[in-house]
């Protein structure tokens, strides 16, 4: 498999290339070089481990946007059963940047909603690179309210560079669509678990992310603005994105320290794309555990806790 190595992974890439070469030689030679291959594989693993223990925020941001990173629908097929996709906002269109519908997790019916980026160019365009328009948020809203009505726990999955900044999106009320979701989610009478699986880009992410518990994949990011956007405004240069990423502390570990995130879900060594099945298993376990806990709470208690959780966000002196 071509792993599409990122720049900071180059030493690993070189080692892996060497292993490939040896394998090739090994297959048409009688010489036994399997020992050498094993040695190099151990070396590659150690190297990966050492590179991945000291990742900078900007490098995590690269991983979060890795072209092979699993997207929402990759997880749907691995975690849930009987997924029934539901389309459209009943008013304007079906926004394919947001996918939603009913499914089961371990046999229990739930509602799932998430942003979906595209894999190839055609799908990327169709999904608008995972940037929803107002009709996407309104479809999500419709499904949220349906979840409440039929007492289905709501699981949302965040992976977007942000809400789409386009003329039509503004004309149809992007701001109002996002605001409405924040309002409704904060009082929705069913448990809500949100998981950041890739990029958590600003208000466009939060619009499906008001929740009882916030989970983040180890190499996902969540921030108020993209590092590039932040750098171009505050540093007056998009090239300072790495510094901006560091300053904003957009990684799962940092946000856990700041108590903005409840659980960090471990990814395989080298990132989720190295082993999507294992990643999905980890995520499923975390979802089930969180869900089980939330379902023991009576609804009024749940909403009370959600409200006080929201109210305690912020730093100030008095």
């Amino acid at each position, binding site marked *: 498999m071509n792993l599409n190595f990122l720049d900071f992974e180059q030493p690993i890439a070189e080692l892996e290339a060497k292993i490939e070469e040896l394998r090739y030689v090994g297959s048409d030679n009688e010489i036994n070089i399997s020992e050498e291959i094993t040695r190099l594989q151990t070396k590659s693993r150690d190297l990966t481990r050492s590179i991945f223990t000291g990742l900078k925020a900007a490098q995590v941001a690269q991983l979060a946007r890795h072209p092979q990173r699993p997207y929402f629908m990759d997880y749907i097929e691995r975690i849930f059963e009987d997924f029934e996709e539901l389309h459209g906002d009943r008013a304007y269109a079906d926004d394919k940047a947001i996918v939603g519908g009913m499914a089961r997790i371990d046999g229990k019916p739930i509602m799932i909603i998430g942003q979906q980026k595209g894999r190839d160019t055609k799908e990327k365009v169709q999904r608008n690179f995972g940037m929803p328009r107002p009709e996407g948020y309104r479809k999500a809203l419709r499904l949220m309210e349906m979840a409440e009505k039929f007492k289905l726990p709501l699981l949302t999955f965040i992976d977007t560079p942000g809400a789409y900044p386009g*003329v039509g999106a503004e004309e149809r009320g992007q*701001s109002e669509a996002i605001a409405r979701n924040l*309002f409704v989610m904060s*009082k929705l009478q069913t448990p809500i678990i949100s998981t950041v699986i890739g990029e958590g880009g600003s*208000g466009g992410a939060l619009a499906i992310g008001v929740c009882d518990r916030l989970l983040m994949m180890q190499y996902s990011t969540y921030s108020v603005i993209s590092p590039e956007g932040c750098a171009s405004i505050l*540093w007056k240069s998009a090239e300072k994105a790495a510094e901006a990423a560091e300053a*904003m502390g957009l990684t799962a570990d940092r946000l856990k320290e700041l108590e903005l995130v409840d659980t960090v879900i471990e990814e395989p060594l080298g990132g989720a794309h190295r082993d999507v099945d294992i990643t999905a298993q980890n995520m499923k376990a975390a979802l089930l555990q969180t869900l089980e806990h939330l379902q023991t709470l009576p609804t009024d208690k749940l909403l009370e806790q959600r409200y006080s959780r929201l109210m305690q966000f*912020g730093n100030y*002196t008095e």
Partner: protein
Amino acid sequence: MNWFTKLLPTRIRTESSTERKSVPEGLWSKCNSCSAVLYRADLERNLDVCPKCDHHMRIGARHRIDSFLDPEDRVEVGSNLKPVDALKFRDLKKYKDRLLQAQKATGEDDALVVMKGKVKGVPLVVASFEFKFMGGSMGSVVGERFVRAVNTCLEENIPLVCFSASGGARMQEALFSLMQMAKTSAALTKLSQRHLPYISVLTDPTMGGVSASFAMLGDIHIAEPNALIGFAGPRVIEQTVRETLPEGFQRSEFLLERGAIDMVVDRRDLRDKVANLLSMMQHTTAA
């Protein structure tokens, strides 16, 4: 320029020229729409609306509240809340220094001022943005003061009016500022459950995280004429779609046309308008 200033190195010369510019500040203002030169005191009496062309200039938070509320029975809410730099955020400047600079320039601790009072005898709470404080950006103090405004309304059973003027979330508070969107929107659910009116007055500019949270959650949305209101900034949109934007795009009148707001109201008529709307929503006699 005399012979002495000519002798000075350029660097020093520039400094002295900015100093000279700041000296006679304040007596006259120029309308940035029709370029009319206006006497500052006249302009203030006219609520920073150009008497020649009716252009609505940006108005400070206190001046706004002062002209909107009745003079009696005013109580400020949440003024003891002060911002902190919990993340030790530093871009080209430290956030701490940016705060100090903004505080010195505006005389405010943060970008939102909340005041309980009356408009034409109708008791209410008013929240008003100070755009000059870091572009009216929403950080933790803005969020918390907004929540205190809502809580005061709940305690006293009175409506809320918010005048927004903001570039959006405050990047220096990173994800904490994003969470203020959820926090303020959640607080409004309580107001709604109690059937207390909330009027959102959108003024120039209301963008990003403020527009995509409480500013767009009013029972009634009023905009001042020609205010820039939207989610993404026009420059960002232009870069994304690579075309020039239509005339009047994201302006109040455009939003009215698209159904996003209820009405466009001249600043000088806001007191009457709000008092009348509130009295109907609360079944009281016209003020």
